[in-house]
């Protein structure tokens, strides 16, 4: 008998990604690293939605004559698609901002940008 089910392990890994991402945002001193850490966190959240959607089954939810199929829940997938697009555009915006800032603060250290050494 397995000590942990495979679902529990996947869930733990997904939530660990979210936590690692957030720790990165907290602890990395460099602005660029913070932005990348935010992307890691966002990946974790997207994976969590997919995980929730796949709880009941893994078959793609396509209308067919056969009944009793274990299909994945389409609602969280549809929702997270929106969130992915929004996340992408925010990442892009922040990176553009970082490029602008890098002209005068080449190291992009947050403490230096905030003007405290």
């Amino acid at each position, binding site marked *: 008998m397995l000590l942990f089910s495979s679902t529990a392990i996947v869930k733990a890994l997904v939530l660990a990604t979210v936590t690692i991402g957030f720790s990165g*945002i907290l602890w990395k001193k460099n602005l660029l690293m913070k932005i990348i850490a935010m992307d890691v966190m966002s990946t974790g*959240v997207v994976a969590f939605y997919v995980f929730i959607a796949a709880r009941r089954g893994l078959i793609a939810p396509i209308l067919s004559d056969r009944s009793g199929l274990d299909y994945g829940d389409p609602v969280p997938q549809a*929702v997270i698609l929106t969130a992915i697009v929004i996340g992408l555009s925010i990442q892009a915006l922040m990176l553009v*901002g970082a490029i602008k*800032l890098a002209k005068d603060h080449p190291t992009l250290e947050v403490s230096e*940008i905030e003007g405290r050494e």
Partner: protein
Amino acid sequence: MVNFTVIFIFLPFLLGFIAYLLPKTDRFLATAASLLSIIFSAVVLITRQEFNLVLMGNFGVSLTVDNLSGYFILTNGLVTLAVAIYGWLKSKTPYFYTQLTILHGSVNSVFCCADFITLYVALEVIGIATFLLISYPRHNRSIWIGLRYLLLSNTVMLFYLVGAVLVFQSQGSFAFAALQNASVEAMVLILLGLLTKGGIFLSGMWLPLTHAESESPVSATLSGIVVKTGIFPIIRCAQMVEELAPIVEIFSTGTVTLGVVLGMFCTDIKRIFAFSTISQLGYVLIGSEGAGIYALAHGVAKAGLFLTSGSLATRQIGSIPPISFSNWLVLAVCSLSIMGLPGLVGFGAKELVLAHLPQWQNWWLNLCSIGTVIILCPVLLIPCQGKTLEKESSPGLFLAAVTVIASLLYPHAYKWDKIIKTVATIALGLGIYYRGWRRWQWQYNSPLEQLENLLSLLTIVAVLLFTILAYELP
């Protein structure tokens, strides 16, 4: 009414993009969008409409429009109208009007929505539009303030998303009402997102710098309406979910106190306004029935203050040179309305909010009112010269006129004991400031406003929320 609602939500986005494509029409379109909101909210408020809509079938966009959303939309319309007029006078670019109109539209959708995903999309659009407005001057400083806002807001929105899917997992729905039986973790994550967006208590420490360093029309929009988009959903959920009551109580009292105390140690007038926003948001949050009117009172008055602050020669209190009579009038009327002077909308709003509160909280918030008077006193002491009304300050004068007219919204507040209490509070606050506080002028810049500390505060607020909810729920 259904079609009108759909058009009302959709049109600002369309107008925003047209404004960018046809730059000559920009100011008219922005004005039209705000007038549309004012008309819509007037219809909702006057005919006392209450209805729910579900668009695009099951799991689609669900909307709820009632009295509460009516007041919030009215605030949005009035503030955007004033900012559009301001932009008209200062010849702002089409880009500014585009962002303003899109921001206006997404704020409206927050005030109508009734499910977590519509809310998420609207809040993210608000985040992006706000970032673009803040960083538009393209100085290093403004870009940094914008980035800081976007990083923080996107991080909490990710937590919020996790909370939303946890609600869906247990209840099979994204509707606000599904929060009723959701797990504690789901509530904590969603509230963390909303409280931070709304600038409440410790999670709102990002607000002073952002609001103080932006350009004055942007600060006016941010303080007037944008922060209320975080608070409105909490009020909506708290009406349906009883478990949220202790959180609303603790956080609103906390934010009123925090804003007033930190505001006393500021000498920069825009920072004072920003801390006053933090404290006033507490009244909106706790307001339940009075929340709508309080949001209107605060939004209009604070937008007037921020818009006028743009024409001051310096922001250091005590060294501001004499200003024109019309600017002085706007500053005085708006700050007196926030202090709650009878005859202005702030008085009725405050009494309506306080009337529904338990004894201890009523007592404590009355004490904090004295603090509100003390922090806004320096505004009243700015010297003025001349007697003429200038065209320059017409948006401010418009908002000041609204605070006078809107005082008719709640005429029941005018009872002798309440009038005497409020006047005594204001007199006491003025006395304390003039005789004592003015001499010291301590300045204290809290290290909590650094980015790392803002992010750490998120974890502290999350633990706080978790503790309160775990104590409350079995």
